[in-house]
């Protein structure tokens, strides 16, 4: 006889799960009792939101499904932001929540919330398990759904009586899960691939626009091979950074609202756009009508609903990016020299490098550049959301996939620190940095307790400007410098860290940046770096909301 809780914990281990992130409570007592002497490692966070983000960070860094666990009602509701974050960025997590006993469902019982109803719009799928007999099957389906096709979060809500009840149970064998309503297309249509290759040969000014789908399908090697074989320049979205080495001659850097001038000019001038694992997000396209308006578009994506959603596409290819790129590579027979186009692009890159003012004051871009120089493409960089995120995207040189972890779609402040904890468990030997703002860091600052008690060696680099910087930047540029509720009082983050038992250094001058970063890396445990940076620094270049992406402001030589 096995209880539902035992079936769950054993089932998780059978799915290959080693670490879960969670927070106990009333209706998950049977599950926590089972965890008490299980070999499954449970990391106690200090807020359920952090459990969801940690599972997400684990998934992004490892490519495997992350798992979080919370109790009913408030516990489950606290997961929601984390689940929505994972949904927007197509990250595979399984969120397990406790629920009041089935006899009390719908009764407004203590700590009851309709979490399957609440998470309907932000999960790929969710389950309310009403019978212990269904639990094992549901768990297998959840991992299968989360980790295949367009990946995403799946929630399993388990009433207390379902986890307590003991039944005769044997785990199912290794036969694959089949669901008649869910059969993702993996292989791209051969004729469409032929058509795409023909179109590439007809082009004079092609650009590859690569996104998070390349990372999700582990297709970076294929992307690089395609770009190098056909000699087509590559720009990546925020989510696609690391898909191609930053210093590769064909790399144009990031495109979009805070992209490079060369990337945005190339997109605007292109006559063929090869869009790979992207979704034509508004932060990328700016004014949609002007985005790649001279280009024919080939769009490769695993999700048919993304094709033609925002922009009309000439050749859609539905399939897993890696599989489609492999098929394309195998079919390439002819190549073409785009020399004139490549030399124009080189010209843009030389004329419009990313740059910032260097007058000796401590600037956030400088901090990111120094960190990038010290790590030399090694380590995992997680960011919060806002200016810190954009400066990291611009000035950190990413060389490998899954080394850049950020909340792109939902833009969740407070994501970075707990996600860094998850990433550290995925990659125990790596240096993991959370690049934060003082605003974002304070949204999940309680996790200092988690890293301290578990000796998780995550480093936090706070670009502390005592502003909610990105909002302040918009107020400066578009609201006549009326800084409405964006100024934050000074916080001594070193003292806060110390109070939790974490070491830290405050850094106020450029000269101290490198020694401080090295000290953080050399420390065995967690570390907080409080960089007091120039307060009103802006992220440039910038495409104002609603403008075409080649109408950029700022970032030129001052």
């Amino acid at each position, binding site marked *: 006889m096995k209880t539902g809780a035992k079936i769950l914990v054993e089932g998780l281990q059978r799915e290959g799960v080693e670490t879960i992130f969670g927070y106990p409570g009333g209706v998950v007592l049977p599950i926590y009792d089972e965890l008490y002497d299980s070999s499954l490692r449970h990391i106690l966070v200090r807020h359920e939101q952090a459990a969801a983000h940690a599972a997400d960070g684990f998934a992004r860094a490892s490519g495997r499904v992350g798992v979080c666990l919370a109790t009913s009602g408030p516990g489950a509701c606290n997961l929601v932001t984390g689940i929505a974050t994972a949904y927007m960025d197509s990250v595979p997590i399984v969120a397990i929540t406790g629920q009041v006993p089935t006899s009390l469902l719908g009764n407004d019982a203590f700590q009851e919330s309709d979490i399957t109803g609440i998470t309907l719009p932000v999960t790929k799928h969710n389950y309310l398990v009403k019978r212990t007999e269904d639990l094992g099957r549901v768990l297998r389906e959840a991992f299968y759904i989360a980790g295949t096709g367009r990946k995403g979060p799946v929630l399993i809500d388990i009433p207390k009586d379902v986890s307590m009840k003991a039944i005769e149970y044997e785990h199912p064998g290794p036969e694959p899960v089949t669901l*008649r*309503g869910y059969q993702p297309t993996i292989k791209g249509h051969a004729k469409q691939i032929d058509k795409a290759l023909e179109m590439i040969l007809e082009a004079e000014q092609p650009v590859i626009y690569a996104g998070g789908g390349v990372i999700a399908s582990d297709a970076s090697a294929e992307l690089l091979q395609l770009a190098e074989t056909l000699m087509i320049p590559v720009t990546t979205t925020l989510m696609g950074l690391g898909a191609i080495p930053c210093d590769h001659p064909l790399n144009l850097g990031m495109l979009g609202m805070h992209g490079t001038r060369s990337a945005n000019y190339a997109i605007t001038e292109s006559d063929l756009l090869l869009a790979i694992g992207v979704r034509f997000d508004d932060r990328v396209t700016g004014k949609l009508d002007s985005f790649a308006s001279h280009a024919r578009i080939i769009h490769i994506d695993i999700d048919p*609903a993304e094709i033609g959603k925002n922009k009309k596409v000439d050749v859609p290819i539905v399939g897993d990016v890696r599989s489609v790129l492999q098929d394309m590579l195998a079919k390439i027979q002819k190549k073409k020299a785009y020399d004139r186009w490549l030399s124009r692009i080189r010209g843009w890159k030389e004329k419009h490098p990313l740059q910032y003012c260097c007058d000796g004051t401590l600037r956030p871009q400088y901090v990111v550049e120094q960190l990038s120089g010290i790590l030399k493409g090694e380590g995992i960089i997680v960011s919060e959301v806002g200016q810190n995120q954009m400066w990291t995207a611009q000035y950190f040189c990413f060389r490998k996939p899954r080394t850049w972890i950020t909340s792109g779609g939902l833009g969740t402040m407070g994501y970075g620190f707990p996600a860094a904890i998850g990433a550290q468990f995925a990659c125990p030997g790596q240096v993991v940095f959370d690049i934060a703002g003082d605003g974002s860091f304070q949204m999940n600052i309680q996790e200092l307790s988690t890293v301290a008690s578990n000796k998780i060696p995550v480093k936090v680099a706070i670009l502390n400007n005592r502003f909610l910087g990105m909002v302040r930047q918009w107020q400066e540029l578009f609201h006549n410098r009326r800084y409405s509720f964006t100024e934050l009082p000074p916080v001594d983050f070193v003292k806060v860290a110390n109070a939790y038992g974490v070491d830290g250094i405050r850094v106020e001058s450029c000269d101290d940046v490198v020694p401080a970063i090295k000290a953080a890396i050399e420390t065995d445990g967690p570390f907080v770096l409080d960089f007091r940076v120039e307060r009103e620094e802006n992220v440039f270049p910038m495409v104002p909301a609603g403008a075409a992406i080649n109408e950029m402001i700022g970032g030129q030589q001052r």
Partner: protein
Amino acid sequence: MKPHTLSVLVENKAGVLSRVTGLFSRRGYNIESLAVGTCEEPGMSRITIVCIGDDAGIEQVMKQLNKLIDVIKVSDLTDNERVERELALIKVNAEPGTSRAEIMQLATIFRAQIIDVGTKTIILSLTGDTEKIDALEKLLHQYGVKEFVRTGRIAMIRGTKAVKSGK
């Protein structure tokens, strides 16, 4: 912008209807008419939805519906030759005398069935397309319609072609 009739085969499970209808409201589409029932395939239900939108919008709705795990197949019947039916129950004031006779005449013309006769009211049952039901309801208004209940529209393609599972 025109009405589209979508036939959606779904798993017959709790909560599926809210997944389907929630998707419409979330993505900003209005449901004009909705009908749900079991169907010939075991364990499945068929939802017939009438929704107004342009072709691109409807295509997007269909793709999003297809992404739901419990949705097995989505078909747009709009461009097919098809039959469509709704059912209406109408309780109308019918005092014995001339008005009752007139109402019974109207029922005959519309091939409506009289399914209940009370001392002061009659209940008519009418099957047909939207226009036919609208027309009878309008004519009955002068007598005083006490209650009017109608189902959502159901639809089927003419001929041998059928909307079957197999996504």
